[in-house]
């Protein structure tokens, strides 16, 4: 027990209350603070390094011709078109199913015990590795049509996008207060009317965010496309042939001996990375805007 010589308090507890920590405890606190902040800084280094390296290595070789030529002529135009096509068709397949299932989970979920099971299945689906989804798409489409096609790639992307859309739609719909639904029902609206006029209109920012995040994820996926849509060095004639896409371009050409193709890979990386990060930032912005309102 140390005596605080400056204490003017006559309280005998003052000595105990003002006792400093033992050196071991002070050391422990400072050590853990250093470790925690050190690890956090350590985690940020890869992100900053990735952003910096991709931007610097890719920006150097960027030529406008790259945006217009297919891969044969040192451009990535057919890959961009391929990615956009496959993501668009995948969205067409997964958005209706996803939103309706999300509506089921939040609107019908209160009274339906099946909702618990469906939510469980959806969470399991989020965790399926993307390469396994690729095998599924291979089995369903490629083996039936006997060739690699953009359609198979779109199907794989749709399966990957589906659980993301379902979960984010459910979260967005849950934010609408119950009393609005009750008021709508009290005015005589059917479930369909309530859902589409009252609930969905308020949840549009959240649902849009979910769709954007799913699109960003699908655009960056490589593994499911490697053996469903394969790759193509030139423009694809239709949806039933192998199609190029941005991520598969990077994967196929990263150790190509041709230095021009290497430069193409870096520039493609900038495009893909910027696209994905832009969509993520926009969706975060949309969410924060809607929260302010």
């Amino acid at each position, binding site marked *: 027990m140390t005596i605080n010589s400056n204490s003017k308090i006559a309280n005998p507890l003052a000595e105990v209350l003002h006792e400093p920590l033992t050196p071991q405890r002070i050391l422990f606190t400072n050590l853990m603070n250093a470790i925690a902040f050190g690890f*956090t800084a350590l985690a940020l280094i890869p992100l900053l390094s990735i952003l910096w390296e991709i931007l610097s290595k890719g920006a150097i070789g960027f030529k406008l011709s790259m945006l217009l030529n297919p891969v044969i002529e040192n451009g990535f135009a057919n890959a961009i078109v391929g990615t956009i096509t496959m993501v668009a068709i995948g969205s067409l397949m997964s958005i209706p199913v996803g939103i309706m299932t999300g509506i*089921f989970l939040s609107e019908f979920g209160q009274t339906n015990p099946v909702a618990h099971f469906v939510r469980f299945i959806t969470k*399991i689906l989020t965790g399926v590795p993307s390469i396994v989804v690729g095998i599924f798409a291979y089995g369903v489409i490629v*083996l039936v049509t006997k060739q690699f096609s953009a359609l198979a790639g779109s199907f794989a992307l749709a399966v990957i996008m589906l659980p993301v859309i379902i979960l984010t739609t459910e979260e967005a719909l849950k934010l609408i207060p119950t009393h609005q639904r009750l008021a709508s029902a009290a005015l005589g609206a*059917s*479930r*369909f*009317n309530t859902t589409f006029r009252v609930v969905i209109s308020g949840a549009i920012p959240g649902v849009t965010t979910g769709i954007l995040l799913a699109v960003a994820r699908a655009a960056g996926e490589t593994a499911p496309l490697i053996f469903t849509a394969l790759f193509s060095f030139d423009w694809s004639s239709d949806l039933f042939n192998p199609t190029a896409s941005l991520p598969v371009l990077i994967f196929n050409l990263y150790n190509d001996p041709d230095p021009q193709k290497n430069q193409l890979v*870096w520039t493609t990386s900038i495009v893909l990375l910027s696209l994905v990060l832009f969509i993520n930032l926009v969706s975060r912005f949309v969410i924060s805007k809607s929260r302010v309102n």
Partner: protein
Amino acid sequence: MANSFDPADRNSIRPPNLRDVNIDLQATGGINFWLNQGFTWLVYLLVIVTVAVLFAMTWVIFGEAKPAILHFGLGFLWSKEWDTSKDVYGALPYIYGTLVSSLIAIILAVPVGLSIAIVTSENILSDSVKNTLAFVVELIAAIPSVIIGLWGIFVFIPSIEPLQQWLASHLQFIPLFDTPEPAGNNMLTAGMILAIMILPTMASVSREVLLVVPTELRSASMALGSTRWETIFRVLLPAGFSGIVSAAMLALGRALGETMAVTMVIGNSAQISSSLLAPGYTIPSVLANEFAEAEFGSLHIGALCYLGLMLFGLTLVINIIAVLLVQLVGSKQE
């Protein structure tokens, strides 16, 4: 149909008991009614589609793998030879590679992820800094896997190669580092890259778990004289333990299935070596490398799908346990 009141029964009239009154106000026809019915049926149909996706996936992959299952049986799991020309296939090197690289990733990612979770949930920093930090860490998860692989090859490997050379030359008596001339593409590199990729999962789920721990526990611990870190270790982490375990399992599930970045840095050599500095091969990597060229309907495809089925089964089991744990934690809070 409303019960009719006979005004003559004045002495037996009671105020209308709503249980007796069977007035059904629900519509039975009209455009609104059919819209509602159609909507409900559509919703049920699409929900069945969603659930069917998971079951169809199991069915299709199992069907594809059946030729190989019938041919090799369970011996597939511990045979080592994988030769496409002789049609002999064995899964052991791939299983070993998948498990070891994921193990390294988890060992590295759990402490770092927990630190980030603690830093972003405790009030050491201001709220805006915490939220920005959490967002930035989640941004790592948004980066496509090929790009991380690309960065891994051209930036990460050159920077840790000196470290690996040092480990190989000075610690070679430990079998873990017993490789004479480590090339950059090896198991350790793959494990480290995987750790970077699963870090956001671990950090964000742990953060949510720590945020849900009741403040009364913190206050009580502080009132008894603990410092912040003593509270964290003795009160918060034990309270959130099951949630943190489920975060680790979700991260593990992600690590097991990660394909592109691992394929680009693991060296793609189907060998089982006790050294971390030797190249390896994982199940997703061999699928990515060999699936496209394998002939339709051949035993090669069957063997690859058998591998895919095992990976699917493994990640399924881990994810189911993780989701159940999270639900358990969630229900305990209520």
